[in-house]
């Protein structure tokens, strides 16, 4: 059992009763109780960790159900080991009201897969003009606010949003991108964009906005979370802000850890095969190998707090098109664990930090402790998963529960897999050897 929240890495037996963990003890200590259990799972040789938490996914419902639904997205979540996901507000209609927040929660309840924590919009319609009804959304169940890919350019409005978020003690998640600098750019600005003749999204576009968010966090004392950090200088700024005592946290995606802009050059163009060039198109864009290396170091050292998948399903119609017109983003829920295990195997990331970045750190951001979620302790929700580090497998389109198949990792061989996911005491997926 690994639970970074308790600094625990030891062999343990767990007793689950109803939806909760009832007891945790040394191997064999619960033997008497186990004899009365309706089922005993032999997890020897596997790793037991808290159910994973992804603070950044796109479930596309309401409005874009051809890409994903709450049911298909949360199914992908449990298959990937996530028992809790926070979904972004860029649906149609936008989640900028308590009605939409409630709709999402009802759908999630019907689907009965992973827990869903809606992220409310910062501004009405993600338009960056007027604050959404943040308080009402929080009351309905939203646990953070973000305009994500439509970042608030107006610094005065962003200041107000941060102050207002403080009122309800929720984090404001910022997709840090200066849209004036990045306009029309389908990829990172650098040698590859120059070669291919694409407009570039310069690292400065992120750096400027990270600096602004930190300055506003200093001013407002709000909890600011930087989404999908992608640049070396962005990391340096977060590090300095933390040293100063500003409440800022940051996330990184698996694809920014595993890939860089040179993959855009390698991406094939065939529509028949997988791995089109557009499968390497996302916002923020894949940066340089130097940024990639810095991100991994920052995750390991804790400057970057957590990993979020930025699960972004898109249909063929959105991706099988001219690169500049293609939609941003790739799937993430079912590839996050195996990709991070790749990094662990290569030695760039410790298993403890990997688990922490997917459990303890995101639980802290969304304050899930008050819901008894995110730790393996008696009295907590029985959200837990088993990982088999030795399981070898290959990612195929059929294995993806998502309605979309936009992953550059299709066909990739992995070692290590989530083989059991339990949410609220119920096994949602289980694989036999």
């Amino acid at each position: 059992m690994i639970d970074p929240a308790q600094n625990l890495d030891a062999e343990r037996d767990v007793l689950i009763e109803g939806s909760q963990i009832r007891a945790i003890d040394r191997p064999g200590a619960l033997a008497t109780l186990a004899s009365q259990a309706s089922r005993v799972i032999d997890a020897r040789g596997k790793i037991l960790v808290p159910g994973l938490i992804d603070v950044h996914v796109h479930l596309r419902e309401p409005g874009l159900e051809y890409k994903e639904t709450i049911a298909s997205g949360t199914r992908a979540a449990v298959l990937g080991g996530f028992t809790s996901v926070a979904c972004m507000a860029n649906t149609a209609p936008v989640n900028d009201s308590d009605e939409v927040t409630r709709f999402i929660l009802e759908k999630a309840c019907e689907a009965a897969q992973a827990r869903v924590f809606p992220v409310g919009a910062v501004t009405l319609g993600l338009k960056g003009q007027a604050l959404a009804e943040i308080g009402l959304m929080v009351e309905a169940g939203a646990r953070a606010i973000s305009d994500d890919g439509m970042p608030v350019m107006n610094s005065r409005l962003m200041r107000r949003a941060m102050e207002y978020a403080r009122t309800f003690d929720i984090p404001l998640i910022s997709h840090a991108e200066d849209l004036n600098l990045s306009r029309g750019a389908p990829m990172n600005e650098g040698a590859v964009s120059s070669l291919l003749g694409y407009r570039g999204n310069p690292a400065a576009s992120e750096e400027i906005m990270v600096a602004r968010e930190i300055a506003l966090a200093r001013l407002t004392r709000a909890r600011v979370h930087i989404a999908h950090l992608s640049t070396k200088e962005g990391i340096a700024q977060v590090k300095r802000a933390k040293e100063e005592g500003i409440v800022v946290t940051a996330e990184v995606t698996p694809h920014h850890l595993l890939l860089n802009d040179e993959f855009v050059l390698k991406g094939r163009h065939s529509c028949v095969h997988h791995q089109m060039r557009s499968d390497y198109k996302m916002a923020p864009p894949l940066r340089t190998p130097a940024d990639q290396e810095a991100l991994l170091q920052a995750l390991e050292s804790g400057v970057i707090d957590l990993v979020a998948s930025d699960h972004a399903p898109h249909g063929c119609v959105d991706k099988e098109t001219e690169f500049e017109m293609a939609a941003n983003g790739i799937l993430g829920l079912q590839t996050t664990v195996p990709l991070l295990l790749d990094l662990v195997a290569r030695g760039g990331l410790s298993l403890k930090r990997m688990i922490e970045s997917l459990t303890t750190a995101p639980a802290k951001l969304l304050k899930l402790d008050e819901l008894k979620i995110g730790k393996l302790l008696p009295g907590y929700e029985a959200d837990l998963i088993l990982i088999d580090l030795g399981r070898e497998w290959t990612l195929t389109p059929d294995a993806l529960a998502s309605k979309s198949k936009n992953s550059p990792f299709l066909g990739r061989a992995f070692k290590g897999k989530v083989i059991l996911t339990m949410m609220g005491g119920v096994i949602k997926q289980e694989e036999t050897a």
Partner: protein
Amino acid sequence: MIPDSCLHIRGLSDDRIRSFLSLAVSIKRDPEKYSQTLKGKTVLQFFVENSTRTRMSFEAATRKLGGTSVVFAAATSSLQKGESLLDTIQTLCQYGIDGIVMRHSSGGSPEFVAGAVSVPVINAGDGQHEHPTQALLDAFTLLEHWKLEGAPKNSLNGKTVAIVGDILHSRVARSNVHLLARLGARVILCAPQTLLPSDLSLFPAVEIEHRLDSAIPQADAIMALRIQFERQDDSLIPSKREYRHFWGLTPERMAIMKNDAVVLHPGPMNRGLEIDPEVADSSRSLILKQVENGVWVRAAILAMLVGGVKP
């Protein structure tokens, strides 16, 4: 099997480049010999972005080889109704075509199409990426002028070519940098920093001269590029007046050229801006030669890729 295409210069082998250029010499010398090369073949002229000279040039080349063109014009097509590029090309392919000549405003689109069809694709300019046939006809024109026909290896050793103007948005410049360097030329890019790509490290070695007055006396050939106003949504140059003052090919600048230096322009020209009439129409100008040679070079590419002519 993926058919042999011509998508960008950086993807062409040295052998292939030499074959295109030497076949172009043969066709130009004896067009009659090749007049039936594309007999019974249909070439789709797939111009999703507007073009006059490149399209006419490819159509003329197809005609000279005895082939038939089917012309697609984006402005009157279902692309305007929102049909996707993929659906459009897969539909057009059902009409029985043997090759696609393609222009598109978005870089990489010919490669995208080449992955979806089973006939050769020839890139006639994609976004700001490459315009390989333009670079080949430019090289052909220079080699012909310098009597180096057939492009022996390193045939442009010792020659300096200055490319002047809007390099950032220019697919012509990108293809030329790759090709001229392959042929052994020294390449100078001359433009304000706002019109240069930010990172040239994946290109062959080039030199940067921000000031045209420093570049001109070194050059054996000066290639002026069109300022692309349709792409100028940014404030890249303060004014046309200022641009002409620093980077225009004026008669005064012609006076500081090497004695035998020549001038090229891929067209269409903005006369009085990047090039003055006195220069464009001077004896140094190879501009009309470029247009003429474009037909022969494109014919050579069509003959090899669509007609199956062996080098």
